[in-house]
């Protein structure tokens, strides 16, 4: 793994992104970049286009204009599957876990792209397929250990409280060993203690695994604490971009959050 956390080169560059749904402009001419190993936050009031932005990166939406450069490759019409293959993992605002499956199985699905054995061997659950399964299981157990969820390993996800589900979802995203992790409001709906835990996990992931993190978060305090750089959206436009301190001092940001009329 990486030697500590040294913020590196730009690995994701978004250039002049515009996204429309019919006549509605969701994003207008947005550019920003993400550097390797950093924690990058996207903030903004409700309806600012934060989730749309994440969906663009992850290939759910295809922007009408603009260019996405990920690790030197241009990616404007990448779909979700290709994004996942390229090393972009994500979590969802409303938790999209496989509810009927156990925690272990959920995280195992996250290893899907890493598994190589072919259909026939897999069907027979034999030889290399079984060995591979065991190797991946070990990796998944490390994640379970990392997130301290051993006690719910065999519990169906639907039975877990919200905060733990969020943690499992993070686990599933981590299982893919992504180079970029997109977190859509990882702390929404959590109590103070759960938020603290989640912060700790996010920072640990960033620090120990060197994973680059892009996150959307409502809780300003949290964002300012854990991010290296923050981009602020309002009404689908970028109004500020910089370190937490710079952003905090920016008059446009203050106005946007206090609801000054445009």
């Amino acid at each position, binding site marked *: 793994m990486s030697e500590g956390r040294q913020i590196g080169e730009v690995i994701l560059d978004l250039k002049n992104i515009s996204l429309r749904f019919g006549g509605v402009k969701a994003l207008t001419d947005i550019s920003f970049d993400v550097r390797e190993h950093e924690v990058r936050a996207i903030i903004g009031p409700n309806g600012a286009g934060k989730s749309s932005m994440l969906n663009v990166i992850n290939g759910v939406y295809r922007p009408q204009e603009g260019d996405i450069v990920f690790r030197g490759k241009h990616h404007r019409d990448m779909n979700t599957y290709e994004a996942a293959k390229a090393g972009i993992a994500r979590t969802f605002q409303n938790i999209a876990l496989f509810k009927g499956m156990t925690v272990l199985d959920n995280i195992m699905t996250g290893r899907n792209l890493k598994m190589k054995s072919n259909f026939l061997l897999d069907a027979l659950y034999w030889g290399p397929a079984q060995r591979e399964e065991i190797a991946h*299981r070990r990796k998944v157990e490390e994640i*379970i250990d990392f997130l301290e969820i051993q006690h719910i390993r065999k519990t169906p996800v639907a039975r877990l409280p919200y905060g733990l589900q969020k943690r499992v979802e993070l686990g599933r995203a981590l299982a893919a060993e992504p180079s970029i992790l997109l977190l859509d409001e990882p702390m929404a709906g959590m109590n103070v203690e759960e938020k603290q835990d989640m912060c700790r996990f996010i920072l640990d992931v960033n620090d*120990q695994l060197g994973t680059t993190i892009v996150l959307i978060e409502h809780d300003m305090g949290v964002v300012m604490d854990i991010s290296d750089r923050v981009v602020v959206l309002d009404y689908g436009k970028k109004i500020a971009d910089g370190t937490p301190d710079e952003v905090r001092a920016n008059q446009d940001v203050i106005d946007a959050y206090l609801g000054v009329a445009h």
Partner: protein
Amino acid sequence: MSDNVRLSSLSTFPRLLKHHAQVRPNHPATREKDLGIWQTWTWSQVAEEVRAMACGLAELGFKRGDNLAIIGDNRPRLYWAMYAAQCLGGVPVPLYQDAVAAEMVFVLQDAGIKFAIVEDQEQVDKLLENMSQCPDLQHILYDDPRGLRHYNQAFLHGLDEVQEMGRIHNRNHPEFLDGEIELGKSDDVAVMLYTSGTTGKPKGVCQTHGAFIAAAQSGCEFDKLGPDDNILSYLPMAWVGDHLFSFAQAAYAGFTINCPESGDTVMTDMREIGPSYYFAPPRVFENLLTQVMIRMEDAGALKRNMFHYFMGVARRCGAEILDGKPVSGTDRLLYALGNLLVYGPLRNVLGMSRIRVAYTAGAAIGPDLFRFYRSIGVNLKQLYGATETCAAVCLQPDGQIKFDTVGPPAPGVEVKIDDSGEVLVRGAVMLKEYYKRPDATAESIDAQGYFHTGDAGFFDEDGHLKIIDRAKDVGKLASGAMFAPNYIENKLKFFSHIKEAVAFGDRKDEVCAFINIDMGAVGNWAERRNIAYSGYTDLAQKTEVYELIRECVEQANAELAHDAMLSDSQVHRFLILHKELDPDDDELTRTRKVRRGFIAEKYGVLIDALYSGKASQFIETEVKFEDGRKGKVSADLRIMEAKTFPSQAAKKAA
């Protein structure tokens, strides 16, 4: 039993370890669940690990007479660290891992700790924060390196790295460690366990190898524990019970200890391991039972009815069958059927399928709770002991189980009751001294060599010890009869509807009591009867609730009447308090023990009312809310008489 003969000649724990490594090198000694898989270390592997750790410690400068702090959850390497320290003639000092910093600092200072072995980053951080207050502390060793990569203090060492150092040291000086082990003597201090101490600062209890080996030996022989037993090690390592069961007895009998994956997984891990030997405080047994009951309430009607029917059968004859007493053929048959359908599956869910012997201690256990486990075929027994006596004073022998005694004195232990009713103990299991506290040592060990336990009790007609209270709390009624408030309060608290009770009676004619109802249980009870209430104060003063509590009190009285020593302590009058006793209002200690003196002072007016025979009394009390605000609660409290019974024991005698 040639093995036993040889065992008894092994006078220190490191020698026991070497013995097992020779006699049963491939027998599992320690297991730990890590990354979802149970890892096993055999006795010879453990001996190697300990050797590496001890040599590594020696390399760092750990010497004979040094104390080694051990802080963390139950981890194999923390258990091994105890052997490692002992090999070098040092003394392991396990600390409670969840202790607040101030308590930890006190022990670190008091024991003059230079070396500490801790579990993980959390504990390292705790120590680093308080380094300035512990000038003696020179080295911190950690088990789990996670999160510690960026810590570059020179005095921090990973155990891996220390063990590697030790292996090299051992290659260069292969004779060194065995020489050190040979220097160990039976009356060297083997471990120092700090007592939490209800009053004053904690004291370090120094126990010798000889004492703990004696305690382990008597326990193992008493219950025929052998190398094939298994125990789940999940209670704090700093607690004497865990030290006796998971360290001393395992080292003596050579059985396997199993470390759970984490505190949250104990239930699952227990099911997977299926221990044959188990120890838990009453609180754990109670939680397990509650979980079972909740699950049964949610189950389908068929299952629920079957459960209740067979639990009825078990109540009738389960405990008797376990004790080998005569039981009718029909009951035997029904019990066998119940075992197939209910008790067996239930034991399996609880992870108790393979338990041969289970113990509980540390607090009074409710008779219903106790009976429940015995009736489903779990051989649950009680024991009595203290940190100062290696937790081994009295044990209940199989087949002679009583719900309210702790059994006869263990082999080799002498127990005497002094004139004031205090329990005195003498024998090999006694402490050597309190660390650097000759005053305290002199105070608790008298000229005849008896240790004063501070507990009050008496022997019943079968020679079983019955513990009733802390000696300092025991008083006398005006009639001269013994008054043991704790005993009465516990009896009342065993009813699920009663949460707290405070008994008064010292130097009075009769016993009276304050009651706190259990909001959950009574609230539920009221709802099922369609009794509307607006909150605790309102519910507590309902006539129906008073009647409910009166029944409980009278039942307790009936039981007290059976006891010659305590029949005068029946509760004549009681009232239900208008507010819940709360540690925030200083009415309870943080560990939820009632502060009788404080309460008596605060509610003096209520006590006067109880003894003056009034029917009700107005009271207003200031309370602190959770957010720190203050408010007042007031109510007109009713006072109720409870029926008392003539002493049964006296009748028998007449």
